[in-house]
């Protein structure tokens, strides 16, 4: 791609040192990343593999000890860069005595958002994450799932070009997980770049186009997810409504032609789809419950045309 990458690192290194400045741990060791506009990128790895450290370097919270790092073409510590970045940390570190609206209002004000535009965004985001009905309830009283939702909303308040999500679905029920994934997809469709770090591999597989797997601070595997998951020399044929007679004939033909008899298994739904179907059915039958309510649809201001309009206002 000819466009400048949204995130670019080359030989990125981060070494944690002790009190006497002696190297203690090499948390990130020569990581190369290149994220482009409109891409959903997954950063995977077990605990201590360097995911969070890499993210913190990209956010300008930690200083790299070597290599090159650029976010939106600039050093990550540049405040102008932060204006266009949204971040959801692995735990939502919120001010417990503020309610949902006050929380978003505070962060919105830091981005210079004022007046009716700010209030409109807050309402849209609360609607989007399903917290519009929480009223004056303080976020300190929120469940973990609700805190994640408000965390996601604050990450999007500035209509960012780059969204960094650290374990965005942790603590969410399957419904919330699906909504978050829908939001991530919708963000990418609108041209936002999303960097997603998660332990939940199914979530990453669902939404990411490319991934990098880290271990011991080093890149172990990297590339488009479809290519990485492809099993060599194995093919899959999917057919619908095949009766017994056709099935036998098909197997016989394949055996005759290929010299090996393939196995046939019915197609299964994944558990998430099944769960969502059951809940959707139950909702249709009994009406809305008392929990969060959202459909995973993007807030109005995050859509491309509105985004352009709002960005002009901020600048």
């Amino acid at each position: 791609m000819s466009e400048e990458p949204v995130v670019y690192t080359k030989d990125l290194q981060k070494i944690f040192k002790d009190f006497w400045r002696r190297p203690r741990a090499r948390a990130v060791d020569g990581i190369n990343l290149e994220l482009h506009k409109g891409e959903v990128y997954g950063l995977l790895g077990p605990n201590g593999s360097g995911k969070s450290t890499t993210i913190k370097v990209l956010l300008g919270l930690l200083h790299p000890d070597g290599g090159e790092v650029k976010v939106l073409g600039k050093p990550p510590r540049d405040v102008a860069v932060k204006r266009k970045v949204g971040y959801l940390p692995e735990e939502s570190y919120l001010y417990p005595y503020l309610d949902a609206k006050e929380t978003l209002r505070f962060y919105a004000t830091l981005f210079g958002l004022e007046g009716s535009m700010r209030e409109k965004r807050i309402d849209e985001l609360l609607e989007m994450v399903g917290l519009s009905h929480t009223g004056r309830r303080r976020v300190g009283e929120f469940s973990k799932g609700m805190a994640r939702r408000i965390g996601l909303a604050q990450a999007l308040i500035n209509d960012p070009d780059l969204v960094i999500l650290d374990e965005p679905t942790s603590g969410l029920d399957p419904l919330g997980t699906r909504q978050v994934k829908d939001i991530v997809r919708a963000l990418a469709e609108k041209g936002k770049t999303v960097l997603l770090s998660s332990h939940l591999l199914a979530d990453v597989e669902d939404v990411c186009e490319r991934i990098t797997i880290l271990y011991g601070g080093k890149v172990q595997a990297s590339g488009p997810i479809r290519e990485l998951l492809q099993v060599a020399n194995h093919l899959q044929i999917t057919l619908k409504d095949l009766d017994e007679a056709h099935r036998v004939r098909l197997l016989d033909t394949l055996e005759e032609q290929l010299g090996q008899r393939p196995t046939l298994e019915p197609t299964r739904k994944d558990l998430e789809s099944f769960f969502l179907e059951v809940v959707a059915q139950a909702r249709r039958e009994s009406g809305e419950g008392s929990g969060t309510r959202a459909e995973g649809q993007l807030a109005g201001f995050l859509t491309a045309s509105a985004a352009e309009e709002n960005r002009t206002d901020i600048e």
Partner: protein
Amino acid sequence: MRSIFPIYKLTLRSIFRERVALSMLALLALVLLLLPAGLETDGTIQGALRMHIRYSLGFSSFLIAAMTLWVSCASIAGDLSSKRLQMLLTKSVHRAEIWWGKWLAVVTLVSGLMFVCGGVTYLRIQQMVQTAALSPEEKTELASQYITARRPVDADYIDLSEEANAMADAQIEAGAVPENFPRENLVAQMEHYLRVSHNAASAGQIIPYDFQLPNPLVLGSTFQISYEYDGASMGNSTAPGAWHIDLPGKEGVQVFETEENPYGTKVIEVTVDEALAGATALTLRFENRSEESGRVFFKTDQGVRLFFGGGSFFLNLFRALLLLCGMLGLLAAIGVSAGSVFSLPVACYVSAVVLLMQSFSGTVEEVVAGGVPAIEHEENQLSHSIKVFQYKVFQGVLVVLKPLEIESPLGRVSKGVLVSPSETFSVFFLRFAPVVLLISGVGVFLFSRREIGAAA
């Protein structure tokens, strides 16, 4: 700078959610309500007023200082330990804005508390004066000496260095001084001796004090001669005396006879008559009229002063509170900076050490003023070198502490002495502001270089 205000508002709000801060507020309220009842006074309304201002308000300001220390250290260090700072720093915010937003919030809160305490003290004083059974004379004395703001004029400084040097040379020549005794120490001792002598009058002796007046004396106006004895030197001796007011070429324009004793501060009320009117300088002579050995010692530092005018006590208290707020602002700057560099316990410790050292800066100053330590009899070179090194350390500490050293104005307010607007202005803008700016610069610089969210 647009982010300062939201951070300021949020910090103010968070302070009221902290248990430690709330406990301190409760303690402050208790002090304000209960301490005055527990203060023992000398039984006079004047004594009660002075105790009230100096100790009740003084203790409140101490508590507020402790609170300042805590909330300022916790403002950034607390956000860091709760990881909320990580969220904040990923937004479009400069670290300097965080520093200033936090500092302003702390200063607003503690200044507000200081003024509330000052207001309560003022109202209580008014109530004490109104309910006290006083004669008209006592009321006048109270109004002219305590519930007022008098401008002090000190006697001209007498340069004794030449005389002290000559005395020191004579001592050295006579062989009365050990060989290695530093000359500057000897001169300092001689000068102190001479200054005490200049403020002491044996039987029949006279001590003159020259004064340059800020404005010509106005006919019919009043001023006060205020003097304080050095009780430690005088012991219990009493002596009859007289104060003479002289003008250039005209001695004894007014004479006041007194019975001197070593207790408390004495005040003589002087009414400007035709002879004194228009004078811009005068000499005050104290005459010891004792016929026996009674010797009178006045304090060498501000022992004899003149007081002019009677400004508003309310405004004087207001200016004193402003100065106290400035001191709290300084303390808050130290706390916020420490909190942005260290963890909360370490930040509190560092700030408390700075505060303690600042309160001992007088002692440090005395040590430094004592000069380089002399080598003692049979002392070896190593031990002397260590002493010299310690002395140099004290000198360094004083350089750091000197800008932080500010005299509390409460003592003056309790004595009805003016805290002038010009002094308030200059201390505020030439002392507090540059030091706060300096501390903030260092704090923001270190805060900006600090990594946030590093693995433990």
